[in-house]
């Protein structure tokens, strides 16, 4: 078996060189036109999500006691490190309604204090399986004026307010539960609601 492996491997150098030549030759006709006709690149999902979150801040009114004058907006992120990094970079140079933005990593219930917006990653985008889930966090912020955002089919049913959904050709749109927003004491602008699909799952029928 080792002899066989040995002969196979000793030919690897030759084979690799050939593969390279063949590959380069095959690609040659493709190169020149491809440089001009690049298809529109898809953007990283977490970067675009971060921008959605920042935009949501501007379209939401919090009760005055939870957002006093001259205090920053606090965004809590559970799970996605990539999204958190994008938000941090944005927060350094951006104001929303003349307020700064603070980004907090939510590892447990104590980190929720003072959050205005809470983003909970779905499992697959999380990267840290020990970060808390929507099921654990939502009960803790119920009726607490926190705009909760995630990407999961059951999020609104569990009490969440905004659900980001990947739609046609990977474009993001969002669903809003106005009932859950009202329960949280948040006023969402009509412009935001006009862009959203309004979904109000009733706990009784367990769906939409």
């Amino acid at each position, binding site marked *: 078996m080792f002899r066989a*492996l040995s002969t196979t491997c*000793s030919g690897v*150098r030759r084979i690799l060189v050939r593969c390279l030549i063949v*590959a380069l030759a095959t690609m040659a006709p493709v190169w020149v036109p491809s*440089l001009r006709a690049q298809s529109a690149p898809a953007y990283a*999902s977490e970067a675009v999500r971060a921008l959605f979150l920042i935009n949501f801040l501007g379209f939401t009114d919090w009760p005055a006691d939870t957002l006093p004058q001259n205090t920053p907006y606090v965004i809590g992120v559970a799970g996605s490190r990539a999204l958190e990094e994008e938000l941090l970079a944005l927060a350094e140079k951006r104001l929303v309604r003349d307020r700064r933005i603070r980004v907090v990593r939510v590892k447990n219930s*104590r980190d929720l204090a003072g959050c205005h917006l809470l983003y909970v990653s779905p499992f697959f*985008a999380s990267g840290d399986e*020990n970060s808390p889930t929507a099921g654990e966090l939502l009960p803790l912020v119920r009726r607490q004026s926190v705009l909760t955002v995630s990407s999961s089919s059951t999020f609104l049913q569990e009490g969440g307010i905004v659900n980001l959904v990947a739609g046609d050709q990977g474009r993001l749109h969002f669903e809003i539960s106005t009932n859950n927003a009202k329960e949280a004491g948040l006023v969402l602008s009509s412009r935001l609601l006009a862009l959203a699909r309004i979904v109000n799952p009733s706990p009784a029928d367990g769906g939409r």
Partner: protein
Amino acid sequence: MHAYQPLLLMAVAVAPVFAQAVDHSGGVPSREVSELADLSLEELMQVPVESVSGVSKYQQSIRRAPAGVMVFTAADIRNYGWSTLSDVLRAAPGMHVRSDRFYDYVGTRGFTRVGDFNARTLILLNGHRLDDPIYQQGAIGTDFILDMDLVDRIEVISGPGSPVYGSNAFYGAVNVIPKTGRDISGAELGFTAGTEPSLKVRATVGDRTDDGVDYLVSATEWWSRGEDDFKLPASWRAVHPMLQGQVAKDRDDMHHQSVFTRVAWRGLSAEAAYVRRKKDVLPPVYLTPTDTTSRGIDERAYAILRATGEPVPDATFNAKIAVDVYSYEGLFTPWQTGFITVSPYADSFSLNSEVSWRQTFAEVQSFGIGVEYQENLRQDYGVDLPTFGMASSAIRESSRYISPFVQLDWEFTPNVRVSAGGRYDYYNTGDERFTPRLGLILDPTPSTTIKLLYGEAFRVPNVSERFPGTYPSNPDLEAETNRSFEFVAEQRLGPIWRIESHLYHMVSSDLIVFDPAINTYRNADRYVTQGFDIGPSAYFPSGLQLRGSVTIQETRDDSTDRIVADAPRTLAKLHVSTPVVEKWLRASVEVLYVGNRKDSGDVFGVVRHTGDYVTGNFTLRASRVWHRWDLALSIYNVADARWSDPKDSGQISSPPRSAVLRATLDF
């Protein structure tokens, strides 16, 4: 330098940036965010995004890296109870670790050179090389500079890394990325107690302030008694009447102290680290009697200032300046000196700086250029004879190198990328090397990635090889070289399963050996390595994680056509980690198989086999207990398997079964 190499340089323009292999952006917004920042919500809803997959940002870029890269995360380290960098490397496909319980040595691509230092796999922290400038030893055991609890992730890069990092990235490189203050967000206290017995205490404070200042300060103190009653092998006792002891009592103590601190603000950061590790050395390591002191103290420290920025659009500028200190002091009474007590020492002081510029054109090409400069102001080493109050040898050296590098990445189509790079290293000691790298990365289907890679590497002789103490120097001694061809295939089967395979052929030439005929070192050995590994991995939505790999490889000495020492032909690894009770209790099992190896037979003249072995480790971890605690119980070497690792003085047996309890309190 070969004649065709300047041509190759001109033809492909060439270099580094494994840093680009994996995206370490901190504080700099991604291309997407800068481009889209001013879009309204309506416009954002028209922006196409990549489909969400389980892999995070850096794993995405690994697919594009011109190398085989394996990443281990803080969660892996915690789940499997890995206490040193060696433990992590044991889990990497194709790697094995040889330990004499003084130092650990990593075998990459199937072998280590018994008797040599750990100098052919470059160990880096945040991209900064950690090997000392005297022995070029990369510390991976308890002498590693960073507490494993402070690791955010570890990138294990297989294959020649010299076109990026220069000397010593001969068979691969390991880059350890520490946590940031933000990862701590407050304070942490860590307590670890083991049955050896061992005790480790860690205190960490870190956060990111509202002004964007990220800081982290951490200190660790760690004691271990090791194996209290170490039974000496009969073969060893036959060497000399002075070595007649049966058992070495209390000769395996270890004491580790380390500090790590980092402050970052926008594009600026300052980082400093220190470690002191004192280790008692078991009698078989240097053939010392059981009743005399044998110990070594290693100290390492560095301080780095870094700046990164985007001076013009689509350009990244990086600058770094670092100071490194290393010191070693040993005390032994070995058989080889006729039981005269010797105290070897080493002492070094180096400055290192690097600047690089990376420019992206039309989003499909990127070009990087930079230069690294290192000044080794002090490279002293020698052997003192405390009994006689004199030195047996004392070498005082200094040296410097300068190394420009260049790298070009070209995405011809979204599915076809070419990466070419090269680095020219000029040493004032006479060595100059150009090492190129060429990679073709293809995505023939959306779920398949194929990489065809060619790379070269080198290792310059270290100070102890150039000036071997009381032996004459060999003025003709030059660098060892390595050439490697590699084929990497990655197949993703749906969102859960992934299979990765590597096939490689490598020729290492002019390997430096000590030749008793001329009483000094010379370039002699030529090794040919070939092999493949294949392994599936899976991440289930339930939290179950699976990773396995099988490696079959062989390394032959070209002159004798024999398999070399410490080169297992087969390696197999299985890692399974699963939630037991929802998300808070998780069980993880690690099973490692290392095939039969030969020892070097240097001392006894008889080559022995170590036999193969299987060992298993088990960890049960509870997260977020009473909100603040993270608890883990690990049992190492569950079946109490005993095996031996080859050593230049024979073989040394492995540690027995042990258990460790870890607790982390999060404030």
